[in-house]
């Protein structure tokens, strides 16, 4: 087990290194930030001074060598836009996104398990049909469109909810709903399929045959096994969450990491792009390892070699 974990960690570090290299050079290929940060009438001297100050006048490989040295010193660079260390900027934006993601995941997962399990219990019945079709619609809805349509309907026409911004409960309703739609739809499909397999399995028949109460057949014997399948897609959902957060945070004006990343690309704020992607990717890799461990905890038959 320890050997497995070590190997996974080594793989993650290799992947993370590849990612950092890719992001560093890709970001620099998006264009020269000088024109964005200095007024158009700035003199040539001022431009050269700006480039020299931030090291943009050096060859890309030399910039990269310096960047690697800085990262090893724990320095992820300096934000051009905010004039502060990039790490500070990113870590400031993270809580907003994490809170949004946590609430969304909690709601999406618990609802999806309930709907998926109930739908699988009587396949083909009304609840199954409504639930399955509804979840497919959820998985198919373009989040940006649902977001602006919901703003139009609930915020502008009915005036029940605020259009954008952060604050108390009313500010959370629309972003969380929009962000939850796709994970919910995806998970219902997975849970329903796994639950149907579990209910048709020999151990459920055995449990029923020996007179175990139906409630405990469903919740203890079938659902626990079906949940393994849901854990499998958890990694995909987490990555998808960040994609969704980019859209939702942009539309609803939340100062989270998704909006920060998009803005940073737009403003050629290289240090912030690198820092936010490194931190996000590290979190995703760490979570994938945790999911593997969770597997072992849920299913003792699985032993990672």
């Amino acid at each position: 087990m320890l050997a497995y974990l070590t190997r996974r960690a080594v793989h993650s570090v290799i992947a993370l290194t590849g990612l950092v290299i890719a992001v560093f050079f890709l970001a620099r290929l998006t264009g020269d930030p000088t024109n964005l940060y200095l007024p158009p009438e700035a003199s040539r001297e001022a431009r050269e001074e700006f480039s020299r100050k931030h090291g943009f006048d050096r060859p890309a490989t030399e910039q990269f060598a310096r960047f690697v040295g800085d990262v090893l010193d724990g320095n992820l660079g300096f934000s051009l836009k905010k004039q502060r260390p990039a790490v500070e900027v990113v870590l400031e934006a993270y809580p907003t996104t994490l809170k949004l993601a946590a609430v969304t995941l909690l709601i999406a997962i618990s609802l999806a398990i309930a709907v998926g399990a109930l739908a699988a219990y009587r396949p083909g019945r009304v609840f199954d049909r409504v639930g399955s079709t509804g979840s497919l619609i959820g998985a198919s809805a373009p989040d940006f469109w649902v977001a602006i349509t919901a703003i139009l309907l609930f915020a502008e026409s009915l005036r029940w909810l605020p259009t954008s911004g952060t604050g108390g409960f009313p500010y959370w309703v629309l972003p969380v709903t929009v962000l939850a739609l796709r994970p919910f739809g995806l998970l219902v499909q997975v849970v329903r399929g796994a639950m149907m397999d579990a209910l048709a399995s020999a151990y459920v028949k055995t449990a029923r045959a020996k007179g175990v109460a139906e409630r405990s057949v469903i919740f203890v014997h079938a659902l626990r096994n079906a949940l393994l399948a849901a854990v499998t897609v958890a990694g995909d959902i987490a990555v998808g969450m960040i994609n969704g957060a980019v859209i939702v945070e942009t539309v609803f004006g939340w100062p989270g990491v998704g909006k920060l990343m998009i803005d940073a690309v737009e403003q050629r704020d290289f240090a912030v792009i690198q820092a936010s992607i490194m931190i996000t990717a590290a979190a995703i890799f760490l979570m994938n390892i945790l999911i593997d461990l969770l597997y072992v905890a849920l299913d003792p038959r699985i032993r990672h070699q």
Partner: protein
Amino acid sequence: MNTPADSVSHTPAISAQAEMVTVRAGLPWWRLLARDPLALCAAVWLAFLLVCMLIAPMFLGKAANDMNLLARNLPPWSLDKGWLMILGSDSLGRSILARLLVGAQNTLSVAFAAVVLAMLIGGALGLIAGYVGRGVGNLIMRLSDVIQGFPSLLLAVIVLYMLEPRVANLIIVLAVTRIPSYLRVTRAEVLEIRSRGFVDAARAMGAGRTHILWRHIVPIVAPTLLTILTVDFAIVMLSESGLSFLGIGIQPPEITWGLMVAQGRKHLSNAWWLAFFPGLMIMITTLAANLLSNWVRLITDPVQRWRIEAPKAAATNA
């Protein structure tokens, strides 16, 4: 579609039972489709869009780009200005209906090209990673880790800022983000198939690597990849629309549904139909692709296939 029943029918001992099964297994796919109303609707909708893709730009291309400043922001459901304005017009007086039908071409062809490209590259890399030595295989897997650790939307944003947001670049970016899923599935299947008896037998009879890959492994992996393709088509269409919405996908004057939503957003409070209909098209089309892919998975799965073939009553009682 070959099911195990076909091979069983050669054994005389169970021929009576097998014959019955063979008859069922022989149902052509279009009759199976007719038995599933939702999948049928999905197929009809996608076929309709395919026709639009081919002929709409020819007949409606002019209507989609013609401005009519006397008919700006015309509300939908009115036939006063001709049937083309049934879904209203945009802020330049262009017919929404014509733009939707013409826009189908860009939206669908980008998504389709991207998933096919991803399948070909991912499948090929997966075959190599699964069948050729560990060193190359490991390198490929680490590359796929890099792509997967990266939120795909961000990758697309960065690359499209770097390159021009042209159709070809968009297709490449979207394809790259989808490669890992094909790669992993192919590799996993290859690893499993190569240890089976018939592969050993082929090797013992002197078959070369290429022959084994093409004749024995690819035919088994291909249907799985095609199933993923249908699901991915829906995902990629949503990504493409999202990118267009953020303003970094295909640029005007080209028409895509995502772009129409983005353009309509500015007029949301006074002309809701500008953004509503294109979004609805995206949703219905994604839904159709998802429904159809579920159906394909069902009929290609011998364990589940009876749900469609068996009479209704039996299916609901299960």
